[in-house]
């Protein structure tokens, strides 16, 4: 495996997160390598959201370490996380639907002509960069002035990803990027993920509960259930049927079938 010889760009070591008496994460460790897609799978309540929020600086872990490029880091805000190159693309994508692509791309990080205090926007440059960056990961827009609300869900996802990469993300966290989309749009997003992967220098954490999407794209898997890692490994390590088993939170399919049959029969 090529990754074995590389150093992880992000590493979690025995991360625990407690909310009062409730333990959301109970000693989770994982390593994410550049140029790889790391699928993070698990059912609702498995702790995926808590894990993302720790990586993106929203929550602080109760105990455990976060390492970025082998240096221990502590985030007190999402800004800190972004500063070390962790880009989080949330499900709502943080887009203003009535505004053009380029204005969304540079929202809060506008480019200016003339003195900065005047705040005159450099629309031409912002439009050019937005178009170029979108093109790099496979979306050809006619105009960067297109209103984001008129784009497809897949295109919007691509815009959010392109934006995160342009602003320095070396680790991209994608929070259920395919879950709210139709079949065709899901495919678009998977293609985008593979194009980003092909760049070789960006690590992707792909959160999903769709095992097919994970199998199609991921190099490495981590399965969470009730705050704990119940399975982890590379594509080669984990057999296909095992994935389905782990997705179900470790419940034996046979048991489940029997139980369901029992209900139907009763």
């Amino acid at each position, binding site marked *: 495996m090529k990754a074995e010889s590389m150093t992880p760009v992000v590493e979690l070591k025995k991360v625990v997160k407690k909310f009062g008496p409730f333990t959301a994460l109970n000693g989770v460790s994982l390593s994410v390598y550049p140029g790889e897609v790391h699928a993070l799978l698990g059912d609702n309540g498995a702790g995926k959201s808590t894990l993302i929020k720790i990586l993106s600086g929203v929550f602080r872990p109760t105990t455990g370490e976060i390492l970025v490029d082998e240096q221990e880091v502590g985030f007190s805000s999402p*800004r800190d996380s972004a500063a070390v190159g962790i880009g989080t693309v*949330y499900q*709502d*994508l*943080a*887009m*203003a*639907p*009535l*505004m*053009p692509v380029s*204005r969304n791309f540079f*929202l*809060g*990080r*506008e480019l*200016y002509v003339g003195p900065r205090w*005047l*705040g*005159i*926007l450099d*629309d031409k440059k912002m439009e050019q960069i937005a178009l170029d960056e979108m093109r790099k990961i496979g979306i050809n827009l006619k105009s960067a*002035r297109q*209103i984001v*609300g*008129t784009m497809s869900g897949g295109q919007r996802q691509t815009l959010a990803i392109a934006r995160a990469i342009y602003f320095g993300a070396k680790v991209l966290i994608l929070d259920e990027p395919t879950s709210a989309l139709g079949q065709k749009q899901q495919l678009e997003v998977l293609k985008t993920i593979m194009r980003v992967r092909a760049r070789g220098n960006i690590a992707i954490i792909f959160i999903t509960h769709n095992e097919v999407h994970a199998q199609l794209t991921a190099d490495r898997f981590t399965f969470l259930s009730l705050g704990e890692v119940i399975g982890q490994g590379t594509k080669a390590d984990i057999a296909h049927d095992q994935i389905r088993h782990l997705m179900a939170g470790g419940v034996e399919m046979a048991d489940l079938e029997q139980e369901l049959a029992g209900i139907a029969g009763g």
Partner: protein
Amino acid sequence: MLKNLTSRPEAVVAATALALFLVFWGLIGEAWLNDLPSLLRDVSWLGIVAIGSAIVIVSGEFDLSVGSVYAFVSMIFLMLMQSGISPALAFLLSMALACSIGALSGYLVWRFKLPSLLLTLGFLFVYRGLVEWITEGFPLSIAEEIQSNWLLQLLGGKTLGLHNSIGICLVLVLFYAVAMTKARFGNHVHAVGDSEVAASANGIPVGLVKVKVFTIGAMLAGFAGVISAANLSSVSTTTASAMEFEAIAAVVIGGVSLLGGAGTVWGAVLGVFTLITLKHALILMGVNIFAYQIVLGVVLVGVVALKGVVPKLLAAEWVSK
């Protein structure tokens, strides 16, 4: 360029306003042209207020207090001059007052997450009540000996037969049109009005943007009030009553989305032109002036009904082109 212009809602309003103007010219004749300076003067006063209302509405909020602020600030302006303060200093103090009134509304809306519609409805009564209480219902006026002061002449006087306020309004429209479409300020106002969550997730200081828009709204309302006081040399308790609704009606007619995130200042001023044209035409045609309210209401209902047919997204696409 031409195609872009015709696909904007503002272009429709401009064409409507022009058509109305020509129709009334035909109906009324020479008296219509003689009335033009005073028509444009009224457009400029309400127009200055509407610029502010448009910006506040694009940011996703409402300010119903602008009519009362207009009256309150112009009253203070007159009272300061009556107490012997020079017009220039009185002007600066009045503007500072207007700005603080707006900043207070904006701060309260942001800090306590208050619905601006209700908060500013409260302030509508507060400032109007202050005007009525302080003046005890009597009009205030500017002493004759200072009416020729340069600042009062600049704000309220005429140049080449046209009121200076028309030029002032045009400069403000230009300034705020650029600020809203080409500058960071407008970009952030649009973003906050479109999606507050997205704006704050991208590091836009939402609270500061809200304080700014309310400050500008109240400042422009107070400024228009001072200009009209300088022109009329008086203020009464009924000055600018219901003006906030006229301003909002004009803004809506001018293509600004009441849901926030879309609209232009020049659209709003074109909306003002349409309304004031109707108002003056009714007066000149000898129709009872109270009919204006009915016309205003009917036009507003018509525009809102029309907008219901056109999806919000389409309106946004127009704006961006």
